[in-house]
């Protein structure tokens, strides 16, 4: 049955597709045959030829319409009309290039921005982690030192666990110029748990993270290419990492970026139970794991909680009972991207608003055009075009525009994504995975179609309400449906409201960032340049040699031309990874079941406080005499308040747990924002202690710090300082991170400032588009009423009356838009609260300033059309009509 049908119909369809001209000729011939036959028969009955012709014509009706309906009988007709509409659309758009260009560009900006941000959101938040069976990967929201992890690894049954300590710096030597690289310390199972095979070599074997079997290193693909020229023979070779010879066992594939993209080398933890401090108080490391078959996240969490209750007793010193108390086991994906979820969602909401505003603008434009084309549409309707046909044509036009906008938008998005990646901080998780793949392109295509239908609906609705007769009778001049004007006003109000919301969001972030940057960090970062010095083990194996090297280095730098002072410190404020020690304090007894408080230990040369410009609240700073004399310490002001709230701590004593000698407190330094611009230390740190850099200044591993940072007070630019320091450093010692202290601080607010800049740019775009919208609507209203204005003027109205007439229109639109925008922002801004510092999401000052600014800007956009209304020459207007 079906087959038989195809036998008859297939040739017809084929002909409709291929032999269009033939089909048309057949149709002509068929109808002509009918008409001629009829005429002949009438003439045969004695009707005069002219009369016969006339009569047949009226009998038959509109020939073209009959033909059109014959064409519609063919299924190919749909393709045909589409092609025709397209041709017509391209012709009309070609004839109004300004309109087409503005519409396409606006859409391209909107679609491009959305596509770029979406590719980021998709690849960071939605796409699975690039590890096999990544759904089984979990993260424990708690951190553990080496010893606790070693216990945990052996006890857990529900999951295999691994730890990593990020943010380490290693100095590679024994192969050309020594190189300081970012690296991570890891447990042996990390790669196996993630399930990533190395590109070359092998995984670390179990227990290969225990001293002394831990003399191995794994290189990143990038480091391998750069330092070893991609030589596959490096596996099995030995290089010195921080002076310790290690065998290169593997090179990871290029896509492996764990824990972050800047990690260039991985070395094992080096578990050593004999070094109590290093084993129990070293890095506190996050734990990841892979659930074993059949185990659930809940079971793993229960197990870790049980372990947590047992491990406290195993520490060599009492631990606070609430340490890691609210731990949970969460999917690894959530743990990795949790911090960027809100900022990214804010971004996509922002670009969404921009696109909405862009759509409203294009809708306004097409509405203006539809108004001008009322006559054309009326004529087409009179010729027999159905409303559906006209609607379809208008939609084709809009979809053509949005398709062009989409293609251009995708091109813009490739650029935009590169800019986004550059603007966002480099440690944004998974940022390198973002790319314009087919999913993102699909998103762009859907976006283009949705926007095309979105702004295309407006003129379609308008034409449906158009009354044919009135338009034709009025010569296409009045007849402007009130509906359309109301719709346009609505669009404008929505635009202003969206704009206000975006600007308020940007304003809140800017104010928050400003408040944050305005915080007094506790030192004077101006005119300080810092550099990290990483001596080889040969230099620092013997503490005395290390100290001698640093002392002469410090003197050499200090006496350099242009240098006002130089000092050494083990960790600069706001750079993380600060040494930790538990402290016993004279006159302070920890609560029962609470351990000795954990302190941040800052090891400094005596000049440090002067060079950094830190205030000493009481007592004195270190002097060179302290390096050799009795052991001393300086504590921070908040530490003093916490442990000696009622008495003067100067002269009191403190002792590092695990050591015998007591240190005398000689001074109290003002608090420094050591963790970031918001906090001086993370919550688990009880206090901050400074000690002079001498042989007793040991950190967790029982040794004195060998990597130090030199802080140089100078007006010289960072590049000159780099050269100056390099010239005073022996060749085999690596020098890295030469940067201004201002940049160190700026890096801590890199994420919020990137978000602020991006949202600021969107807000600017939104306001610009919004102004164009307001301008467009008012211009349209003025041009519609220009005759009325002319008459009013002719009848004696003053130009300023007209000014008020137009201005009032604009003011009402703005007022309503701003009011709605503020209401919307009050509701929506609560999502911002986690990104704000120092202000509430409903900060009245920001709202007031934004409302005022937007009002002023939109009023300016009203000015030009208003002026045009005032300059109406009644003579010209009335003559033209």
């Amino acid at each position: 049955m079906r087959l038989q049908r195809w036998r008859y119909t297939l040739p017809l369809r084929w002909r409709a597709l291929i032999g269009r001209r033939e089909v048309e000729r057949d149709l002509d011939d068929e109808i002509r045959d009918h008409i001629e036959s009829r005429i002949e028969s009438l003439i045969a009955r004695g009707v005069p030829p002219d009369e016969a012709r006339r009569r047949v014509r009226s009998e038959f009706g509109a020939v073209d319409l009959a033909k059109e309906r014959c064409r519609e009988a063919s299924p190919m007709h749909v393709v045909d009309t589409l092609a025709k509409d397209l041709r017509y659309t391209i012709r009309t758009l070609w004839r109004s290039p300004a309109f087409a260009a503005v519409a396409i560009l606006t859409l391209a900006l909107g679609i491009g921005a959305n596509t770029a941000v979406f590719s980021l959101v998709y690849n960071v938040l939605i796409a699975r982690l690039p590890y096999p069976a990544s759904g089984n990967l979990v993260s424990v929201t708690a951190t553990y030192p080496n010893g606790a992890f070693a216990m945990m690894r052996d006890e857990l049954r529900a999951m295999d666990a691994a730890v990593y300590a990020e943010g380490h710096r290693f100095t590679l030597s024994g192969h050309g110029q020594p190189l300081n690289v970012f690296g991570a310390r890891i447990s042996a199972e990390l790669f196996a748990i993630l399930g990533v095979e190395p590109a070359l070599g092998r995984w670390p074997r179990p227990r290969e993270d225990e001293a002394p079997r831990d003399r191995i290193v794994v290189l990143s693909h990038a480091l391998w290419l750069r330092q070893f020229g991609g030589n596959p023979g490096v596996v099995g070779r030995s290089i010195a990492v921080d002076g310790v010879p290690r065998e290169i066992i593997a090179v990871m594939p290029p896509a492996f970026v764990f824990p972050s993209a800047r990690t260039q080398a991985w070395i094992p933890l080096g578990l050593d139970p004999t070094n109590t401090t290093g084993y129990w108080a070293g890095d506190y490391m996050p734990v990841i794991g892979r659930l074993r078959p059949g185990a659930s996240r809940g079971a793993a969490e229960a197990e870790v909680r049980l372990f947590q209750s047992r491990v406290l007793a195993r520490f060599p010193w009492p631990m606070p009972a609430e340490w890691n108390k609210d731990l949970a086991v969460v999917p690894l994906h959530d743990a990795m991207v949790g911090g960027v979820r809100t900022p990214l969602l804010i971004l996509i909401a922002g670009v969404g608003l921009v696109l909405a505003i862009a759509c409203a603008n294009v809708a306004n434009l097409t509405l203006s055009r539809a108004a001008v084309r009322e006559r054309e549409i009326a004529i087409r309707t009179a010729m027999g075009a159905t409303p559906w046909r006209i609607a379809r044509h208008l939609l084709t036009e809009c979809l053509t525009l949005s398709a062009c906008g989409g293609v251009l938008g995708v091109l813009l998005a490739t650029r935009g994504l590169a800019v986004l990646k550059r603007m966002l901080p480099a440690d944004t998780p998974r940022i390198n995975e973002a790319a314009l793949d087919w999913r993102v392109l699909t998103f762009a295509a859907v976006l283009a179609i949705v926007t095309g239908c979105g702004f295309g609906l407006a003129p379609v609705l308008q034409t449906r309400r158009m009354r044919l007769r009135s338009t034709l009778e009025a010569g296409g001049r009045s007849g402007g449906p009130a509906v359309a004007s109301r719709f346009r006003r609505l669009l404008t109000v929505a635009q202003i409201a969206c704009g206000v919301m975006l600007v308020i969001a940007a304003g809140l972030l800017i104010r928050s960032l400003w408040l944050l940057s305005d915080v007094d960090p506790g030192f004077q970062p101006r005119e300080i340049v810092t550099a990290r010095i990483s001596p080889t083990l040969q230099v620092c194996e013997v503490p005395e040699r290390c100290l001698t090297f640093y002392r002469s280095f410090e003197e050499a730098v200090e006496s350099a031309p242009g240098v006002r002072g130089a000092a050494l410190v083990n960790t600069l404020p706001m750079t993380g990874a600060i040494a930790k020690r538990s402290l016993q304090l004279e006159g302070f007894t920890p609560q029962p079941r609470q351990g000795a408080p954990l302190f941040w230990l800052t090891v400094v040369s005596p000049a440090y406080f002067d060079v950094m410009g830190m205030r000493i609240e009481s007592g004195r700073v270190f002097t060179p005499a302290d390096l050799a004399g009795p052991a001393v310490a300086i504590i921070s002001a908040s530490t003093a308040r916490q442990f000696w709230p009622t008495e003067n701590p100067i002269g009191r004593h403190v002792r590092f747990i695990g050591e015998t000698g007591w240190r005398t407190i000689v001074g109290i330094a003002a608090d420094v924002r050591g963790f970031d611009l918001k906090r001086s230390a993370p919550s688990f740190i009880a206090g901050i202690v400074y000690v002079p850099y001498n042989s007793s200044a040991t950190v967790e591993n029982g040794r004195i710090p060998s990597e130090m940072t030199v802080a140089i007070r100078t007006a010289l630019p960072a590049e000159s300082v780099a050269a100056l320091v390099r010239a005073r450093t022996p060749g085999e010692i690596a020098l890295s991170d030469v940067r201004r202290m201002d940049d160190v601080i700026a890096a801590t607010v890199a994420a919020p400032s990137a978000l602020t800049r991006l949202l600021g740019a969107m807000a600017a775009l939104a306001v610009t588009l919004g102004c164009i919208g307001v301008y467009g609507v008012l211009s349209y209203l003025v041009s519609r009423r220009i005759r009325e204005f002319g008459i009013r003027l002719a009848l004696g109205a003053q130009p300023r009356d007209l000014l008020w007439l137009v201005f009032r229109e604009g003011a009402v639109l703005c007022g309503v838009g701003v009011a709605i925008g503020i209401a919307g922002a009050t509701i929506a801004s609560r999502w911002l609260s986690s990104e704000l510092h120092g202000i509430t999401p409903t900060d009245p000052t920001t709202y007031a300033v934004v409302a005022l600014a937007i009002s002023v800007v939109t009023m300016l956009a009203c000015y030009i059309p208003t002026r045009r209304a005032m300059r109406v020459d009644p003579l010209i207007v009335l003559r033209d009509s």
Partner: protein
Amino acid sequence: MSKPQDLVQGTLDLLLLKILALEPLNGYAISQRLQQISSDELRVSDGSLYPALHKLEQEGWIVATWRTTENNRRAKYYSLSRLGRRQLERETENWTRLAAAITRVVNLRG
């Protein structure tokens, strides 16, 4: 201009198929025949005859051949296909059933 109002919707197809079942005809002859056999009761405007014919052709129920008339014009003659014959049977049956049902309703005595 749209559907002939005096024709029950859908019956035009049936009439056309029936006429063409008797002999192949061109459009003009079909319109003449329509008027003749229905004694001018059923008027189909010529403007809607052709779209209807084209629709039937697209369905595969009628097929067209071109002949040259004595006046040397190209004329399109339609004839019923095998598919069309089956369709005609179906529609005739439907129509008879419908007509009978309606007649019964109309003749009801209340």
